[in-house]
């Protein structure tokens, strides 16, 4: 066994991680160190956009943990992300104070819906740490209850996917309701202060970027660590053949619930950091199509690989940001075709491309052409 505290597979991985860490540290510094007219200057806008990408990357990792390593395709990962966002958003809403349109201490939407005082479940959210904590345990709790129900009755495969989709759909409908006390369709916007600072300050953008970046690295490390442990072995064994694991005396249900809860908590944290950078959270973040988006990120990057989801999330969102500006009419077609190409020709995603090319070169050298196919068949049993 390798050094337990350095659970990395290859030199390449270590280098990539180091580059990521350097990027996370340096990028915000380029915002302050270089003057605005310098070619190396990074605007706060770019900072917040990239900060959002990092949150997406964390979200993608959380799904990959579930799907790539455990074989549980969750189409409702967006729900946990949004729940985390809502939890932290509640704190941000309360921090607006009396700067809203009505000048009262209540959030605006409550005033015009006729509330005279803050509902009880909102009160603890004056404390930011409670909000951060809630961004983890609320998604965790939902995942625990749902996971207990689903895994105990041995719901798996496509059934699990579609049920998670139903769950997020129902939750979105619930949050769309105005009398659910979460702002209905408008959700939460127009945040003013975070930890006592004006949210519009560049220093806040930098801090949020760093927080997102370190969360990403931390989550990466956590998952790499788990994968190296015995736990990770069981996890992958469940993916490949759950029944054999069960017959070997492991309670796969408990494993799966645990993984589901951890994954939901990670997604929730990503959501909590995402909301102050995006400036809005509303129920359309829970809409089933958002859940599918995340699946696409992971698939394009390469599921079942540690760096794949990060690359997929960043790449696709970068592409989306770019094409919605340059090809506003046809960007969906471009993006759709890219997905199609990846699904058809890069079954292991962008990170698998290198191996694919290597295999192809080898197959041209070797006499009986070896294919990538058998390896795929095993991975896709679920």
């Amino acid at each position: 066994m390798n050094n337990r505290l350095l659970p990395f597979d290859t030199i390449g991985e270590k280098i990539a991680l180091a580059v990521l860490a350097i990027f996370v540290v340096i990028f915000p510094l380029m915002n302050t160190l270089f003057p605005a007219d310098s070619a190396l200057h990074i605007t706060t806008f770019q900072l917040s956009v990239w900060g959002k990408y990092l949150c997406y990357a964390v979200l993608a990792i959380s799904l990959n943990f579930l799907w790539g390593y455990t074989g549980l395709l969750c189409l409702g990962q967006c729900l946990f992300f949004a729940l985390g966002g809502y939890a932290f958003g509640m704190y941000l809403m309360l921090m607006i104070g009396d700067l809203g349109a009505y000048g009262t201490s209540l959030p605006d939407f409550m005033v015009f819906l006729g509330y005279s005082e803050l509902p009880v479940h909102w009160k603890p959210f004056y404390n930011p740490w409670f909000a951060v904590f809630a961004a983890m345990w609320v998604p965790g709790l939902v995942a625990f209850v749902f996971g207990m129900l689903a895994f105990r009755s041995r719901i798996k495969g496509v059934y699990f996917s579609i049920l998670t989709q139903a769950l997020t759909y129902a939750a979105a409908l619930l949050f769309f309701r105005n009398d659910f006390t979460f702002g209905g369709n408008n959700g939460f916007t127009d945040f003013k202060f975070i930890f006592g600072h004006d949210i519009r300050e560049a220093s806040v953008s930098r801090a949020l970027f760093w927080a997102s970046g370190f969360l990403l690295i931390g989550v990466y490390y956590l998952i790499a660590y788990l994968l190296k442990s015995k736990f990770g072995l069981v996890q992958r064994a469940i993916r490949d053949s759950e029944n054999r694991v069960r017959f070997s005396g492991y309670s796969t249900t408990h494993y799966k619930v645990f993984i589901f809860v951890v994954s939901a908590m990670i997604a929730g944290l990503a959501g909590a950091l995402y909301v102050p950078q995006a400036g809005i959270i509303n129920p359309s973040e829970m809409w089933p199509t958002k859940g599918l988006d995340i699946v696409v990120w992971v698939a394009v990057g390469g599921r079942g690989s540690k760096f794949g989801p990060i690359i997929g999330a960043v790449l696709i969102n970068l592409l989306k940001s770019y094409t919605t500006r340059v090809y506003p009419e046809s960007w969906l077609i471009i993006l759709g075709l890219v997905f199609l190409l990846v699904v058809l020709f890069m079954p292991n995603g962008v990170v698998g491309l290198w191996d694919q090319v290597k295999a192809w070169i080898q197959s041209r050298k070797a006499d009986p052409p070896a294919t990538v196919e058998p390896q795929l068949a095993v991975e896709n049993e679920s």
Partner: protein
Amino acid sequence: MFIGGKLLKLVALLVSVYICASSALHAADDQARQVLVDLVLAEDDAATQASLDKLGELGDEVIGQFVAAWRVGQVFVDEKNGGPVVLMQVGEGKYENLLTGASAAMSADAKIDRASRKLRKDLRRIVDLLDLKSPDYKKRIAAADKLGKTQNEEYLPELRELAAKQTDKKVKRAFDEAVAISELKNGNEDQLLSAVIELGELRSFGARDYIESVYQDAQQADEKNTSLIKSCETSLRLIDERQKMLDFASTLFRGLSTGSVLLLVAYGLAITFGQMGVINMAHGEFIAIGGYTVYLVQNFFIANYGVDSDVYGWYFAVSLPAAFIVSALAGALLEKGLIQFLYKRPLESLLATWAVSMVMQQAFRLKFGAANVSVSTPEWLSGSYDFFGVLMSYNRLSLIVFAILVVVVTRLLLSKTSWGLHVRATMQNRQMASSLGVPSARVNMLTFAFGSGLAGLAGAFLSQIGNVGPSMGQTYIVDSFMVVVVGGVGNLIGAAISSLGIGMIDQGLQPLLGPVMGKITVLFLIIIFLQFKPGGLFPARSRSLDD
């Protein structure tokens, strides 16, 4: 109010004159036409009023016909050929000269003439009074209903007199109801009491509010009229009981119809997903293809035959097979070009078809525009059938019939044809079937095309009750998957039963919880249901552990 007062006076005049002149009614045709022409061409309020006054004296068929045509923009003024000529549209592309009643051609310069809202309201009253004596019993019923609810005592003697003359049970009932509702306000104490009792016995829904206000007044009165209060309570209870029964029956019908919609949209998916294991996220876009096909066929008919032709009404009948064929072809194309490479990777089929769905949606937008397109309802599908008070619209009825047809035909195809045998064999074990000589590639393609074709048919029907637009399919995709999963993947009858069940529960919950909470509750119920039956209603049986 000024207008109201004037109208009342006018109507009072009308009623008296009308009754006196009723014997001379049908002789007045020419005169009526003249007055109508004057009315259309009237240049100021005084002239309009004068024509209106005259019109009341003349109870003639043509007045009702004219007012109906005026309302929907079928009256034209043609300034050509000397003086202005008033034309009325009497059929698809046919016009008559209002003055003479002779059919006439319309020149290109003719302009639509419109009545003001107030004028139409005045006319409406006149027509209602005329309709009381119309030979068409439906008109008599509608007129009595409206005049009764005005609670205007001017009409009461007329209504009473005519009520006695009605022979048909339905019509008699409407007149009695009208008289009673009017008496609630205008009758003396005895009449009031008997009206309340009568309306209760008639279970008149329309009268409920009126009885309620009588009840309120009676309770607040200084002198309590206990018998009135009692009979009000009885009548209200009787009406509410009938209302409840009717609500229940209507809910059943609505559940059936919602279930049929779900069945239609989900059945194609039950085949592609349930039978073939392809998670087709582009299913909704095949529904949209069906909808757009109807639109294109409709436009073809408009371009070649015109909206007014007799053939036009049949465009929908033609578009049903067209929608099936076009969607099936698109499905075959998708299977050949994409799906066939992904049979070993079901979850990847989800991703690939999701991408296809994105591309198709945007392609629809670029081709047909982002806005929804207009699809009209053919004459033979509009309107509704009153089944003992439960209103069933024809398009909903046809939807139910069609859903049943789809289930039956699919069942027959799968169980009675050799293709069906091949399909079942291939679905059970693709490799085994193929090694036994089943042309599995072809079977796959045909099956997928069939499922897509069904989605197209669903889209064609949805065009009659909803939107046709780029994202019309998205509305149904989650629901479709629910139906299939609840029914048991791979079981077509299960899908049929689950769609009916979900439809019924949805419609049953709606009156209690409202549409939003109703829908949420249904979703949670489905999640909970699957805890107990993880394989759906009819789980696929298999000896394999890892299925």
